[in-house]
């Protein structure tokens, strides 16, 4: 019987969602670098580890489209073809970046600047509105550890952590004992605001059913009641005036409250104004008690992408380099808009799957022009690409830094080796930069 040589890696940081759990344990079989077991992770994080095992779903060699089919190619050939596409483009879009580590993201900024293209990350379809609101009204916020230790009133507005951030409730916001919250769940009041009675709402203390796309008016009413104004209404957004007043009393009675919010606010029609008013509410609650607000960031390192882009260019996403310096204007320079307006002539996608996650209109445009995918797996984006460059998976097969949803940077470890020959995201961008510079004659 062959003995399996198994290594267990402890304190593994999970590269899936913005909760960035740092307590996973992974068993790796050393001879073929196969993940055998993952402990402590949620279902999704666990699956991500298993998906790193070599399988028909994973690319282990670069691919170039020849005669309509993706065919294996050498790294040199594929990188050369990709660089060629980028150099020939007059307005290349470099998109994605949220599921890789910070050093690679920084290299991406460099590449976009050299090409004079458009640089955008997944925040533009997700929490971009949150960033716009923060730029308008600021944000009173803190770290997850503080919430775990102090918060007695927790509001989930337009988010569903049971499904999207499965261990958030158990590590930071609900079912966890904090330093000043020794009784855990019993020391907290959980409020959920959502059009649906989500599974997060089903285990909350108070559920507020709001009409879809009408969160703004409800937040607006709450702020006015908080100011002591008598409203001339019987109900707002499907919530009775009585319930609104009750909710305001609950918020004022908190000793330390936090609002967590998600796509329910950022992707419904009022977009960043929903967040703007939620932030203003949080600030105004501080006239009565202590209240803070944090966005439930989706990808494990989208916060990193925003942070890295900001310290390099001054701006967090939707950046244009076409005039030789960084300019910022979400909408004008966002991936979906530049695609829908047909203002792009090549796309590089790194650590993302826009073909799955964008509405169909921008995807149609993206497919009209050369597409390079830096992607380990077969996805609707990568199988339709002209060049596929398969990287080592950041946070599993290579080290790096990621930023949690509350901006705490955590070092990602290397748990196992990548399939033979796979370069890291950083190395791929670095080599692309070299080849682009060569072709531009620098």
């Amino acid at each position, binding site marked *: 019987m062959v003995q399996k040589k198994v290594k267990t890696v402890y304190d593994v940081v999970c590269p899936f969602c913005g909760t960035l759990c740092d307590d996973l344990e992974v068993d790796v079989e050393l001879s073929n670098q196969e993940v055998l077991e993952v402990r402590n992770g949620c279902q999704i994080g666990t699956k991500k580890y298993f*998906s790193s095992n070599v399988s028909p779903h994973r690319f282990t060699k670069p691919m170039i489209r020849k005669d309509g089919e993706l065919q294996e190619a050498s790294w040199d050939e594929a990188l050369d073809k990709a660089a060629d596409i980028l150099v020939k483009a007059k307005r290349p879009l470099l998109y994605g970046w949220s599921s890789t580590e910070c050093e690679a993201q920084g290299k991406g900024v460099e590449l976009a600047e050299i090409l004079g293209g458009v640089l955008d990350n997944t925040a533009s379809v997700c929490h971009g509105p949150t960033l716009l609101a923060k730029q308008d009204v600021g944000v009173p916020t803190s770290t997850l550890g503080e919430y775990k230790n102090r918060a007695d009133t927790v509001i989930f507005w337009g988010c569903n952590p049971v499904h999207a951030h499965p261990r958030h409730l158990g590590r930071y916001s609900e079912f966890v004992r904090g330093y000043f919250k020794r009784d855990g769940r019993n020391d907290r009041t959980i409020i959920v605001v959502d059009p649906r009675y989500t599974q997060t709402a089903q285990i909350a203390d108070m559920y507020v059913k709001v009409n879809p796309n009408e969160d703004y008016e409800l937040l607006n009413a709450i702020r006015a009641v908080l100011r002591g104004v008598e409203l001339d209404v019987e109900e707002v957004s499907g919530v009775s005036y009585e319930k609104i007043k009750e909710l305001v009393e609950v918020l004022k009675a908190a000793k330390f409250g936090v609002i967590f919010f998600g796509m*329910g606010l950022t992707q419904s029609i009022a977009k960043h104004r929903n967040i703007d008013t939620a932030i203003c509410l949080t600030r105004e609650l501080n006239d009565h008690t202590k209240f803070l607000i944090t966005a439930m960031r989706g990808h494990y390192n989208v916060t990193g992408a925003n942070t890295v882009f900001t310290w390099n260019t001054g701006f967090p996403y939707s950046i244009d380099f076409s005039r030789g310096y960084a300019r910022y204007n979400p909408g004008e320079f966002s991936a979906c808009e530049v695609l829908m307006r047909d203002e792009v002539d090549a796309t590089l996608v790194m650590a993302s799957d826009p*073909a799955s996650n964008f509405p169909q*209109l*921008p995807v149609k445009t993206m497919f009209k022009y050369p597409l390079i995918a830096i992607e380990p797996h*077969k996805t609707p984006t990568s199988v339709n690409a002209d060049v596929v460059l398969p990287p080592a998976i950041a946070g599993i097969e290579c080290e790096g830094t990621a930023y949690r949803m509350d901006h705490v940077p955590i070092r990602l470890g290397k748990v196992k080796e990548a399939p033979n020959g796979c370069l890291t995201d950083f190395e791929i961008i670095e080599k692309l930069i070299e080849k682009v510079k060569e072709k531009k004659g620098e």
Partner: protein
Amino acid sequence: MSIENMTLLTGRTISQGVALEGGKTTKENVRAAAICMFDKEDFKKLDCIVGTPVKITTEFGEVTVYSTLTEEGPHPGIIFIPMGPWANQVVNPQTQATGTPTYKGMKAKVEVAKSAKVLGAVELISQLKEA
């Protein structure tokens, strides 16, 4: 049978998250994300069994997915498709100059499509390339 004027929401489910990490080209992904969740009472109006394919049409497109009952109701008037390539055939791409499409709150019509085929992710998206 059909129902009109439903409000379509899209978003994360844990099964869809697991499926997308497991392989976007898999049947698991179809079962997790090519579905539309209905409120129990709304579903009765369709007069079909759970799992029957339904065609969802909005101002922005149409898509055929499997019908299922919600575990997060009651929410009469609201239908829910998990985020992903199927939902994205029918969401509102308009960003109102913010760059973020409007993934939630579209008005939708639902029609029972018993013999229609629900496409896999790659098949569905590759249609956009041919177009």
